């Protein structure tokens, strides 16, 4: 929604509210007139609230897409070093090989 639209909606709402308050706060308005004004006020409020709910719903859809997007970015971040992993693995293998080699050497002697 553009800023102009938002301002226009706000203006219309304020004008409608003022109009209805004029009737509802009047000491001379008839009861029937006030009843109609109350119903109109409730309709006005419901319309504005429904618009807000729809706006948030639209944002939630966008938000869900952004969450997926950021999760993909997180998944693509390589925090752990492959070099370290390989080095650690190789160190283990070398240590194992060293044990075997020592054992072989002892057996030969």
């Amino acid at each position, binding site marked *: 929604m553009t800023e102009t639209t938002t301002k226009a909606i706000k203006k219309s709402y304020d004008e409608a509210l003022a109009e209805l308050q004029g009737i509802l706060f009047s000491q001379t308005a008839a009861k029937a007139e006030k009843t109609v004004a109350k119903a109109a006020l409730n309709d006005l409020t419901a319309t504005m609230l429904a618009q807000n709910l729809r706006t948030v719903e639209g944002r939630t859809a966008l938000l869900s897409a952004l969450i997926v997007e950021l*999760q993909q970015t997180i998944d693509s971040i390589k925090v752990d070093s492959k070099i370290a992993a390989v080095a650690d693995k190789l160190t283990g293998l070398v240590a194992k090989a060293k044990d075997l080699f020592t054992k072989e050497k002892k057996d030969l002697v």
Partner: protein
Amino acid sequence: MTRLYLVLLALLLAGCGEIPKDALTGYTESFRAAHDASDAFLVQFGQTKQEAESFIQAREEPSNLPFKPYPDVLPAHVPNGDAIDPDVEAMRLGFEVISRYNAALVALADDKAPEAVGASVSGLIAALGDFVPVAGTVAGAVGSFATELERARRRGEFRQALDSGAPTVREILTLIAANVETDYDSNVKLADNARTLIASEIVDRVTELQGVFSTCAAPAGASTFTALDDRQAALDGVLEPLSKELGIATAYPYPLAFNPAGTPYTAESEAVITALALKIAEMVVQYEAIIARVNALARSSAAYRQMLNVTQRSLTALEQADDAPPDLTQQAAELLRLAFLIKTHVEEIRAARVGA
């Protein structure tokens, strides 16, 4: 010589720029503060949404139908009272995913991790030394080189993670900030409605009160009844909070006057007038509670939105960070102030909700 080349290479790599840790801390701390404050906002948001939905539903259902305290047809789905609202859940997940993203950035900026890589490589070289004769110094030099390589890799990875993630984080925070505004707007609309209806009821009761006075003649001589001036002063005082409302402003103060040609003022008249005055005072309390609640919400929502803005600004600072570390003192002070404001106003909102 080999060692010298490695050290020079390491220095060159180090000269390619550092991960801006101060700016990263500034951003992650801002976000943490906003995330901590988000619980109160999300609860508030969920309540407003429920109120709005109930209001709309009440308008859609014809009022002449009988009250249904239980479903009259079997529901298609088992109702889950604990189900989280999808809009609230999306915002909660938004905060969660940004937290995970920040944790990844912090992990990339971890100083000890590249040293651990260097140590692993040194360990490998040392282990190999048992088979192949390798000078002890070379194992250390290769380890240092691996450390610097890992630092460079992390710097590159950090920049890439920032370039691809920061715009998404900014968009998520912008959407949540927009929801803060919409939530406030819905509260204003609900409050406008409730405030107008209750003010209308108050005006009707005041008219009724004036009507009772206008049908009675002033009590003759000394009486135990409350004096008219005292009634008038009390009414003016009670109605003062409404005195700026459009339409009421022109009529206020509402004059009370006896009718010389009216019926005698009796104990019954006094009782009716007292009851009406009490009812008016009660309704004004409700009217004021509506206003107090929205004002408290305005302050807390503005503080929360500002907190999200501070987080966005610190993210921009992180993206643009150069050698000069940002001044975090001012930012920390602002965040503390905002967190305190939100906490205070949340208490006010709760108190006003109980009073309403």
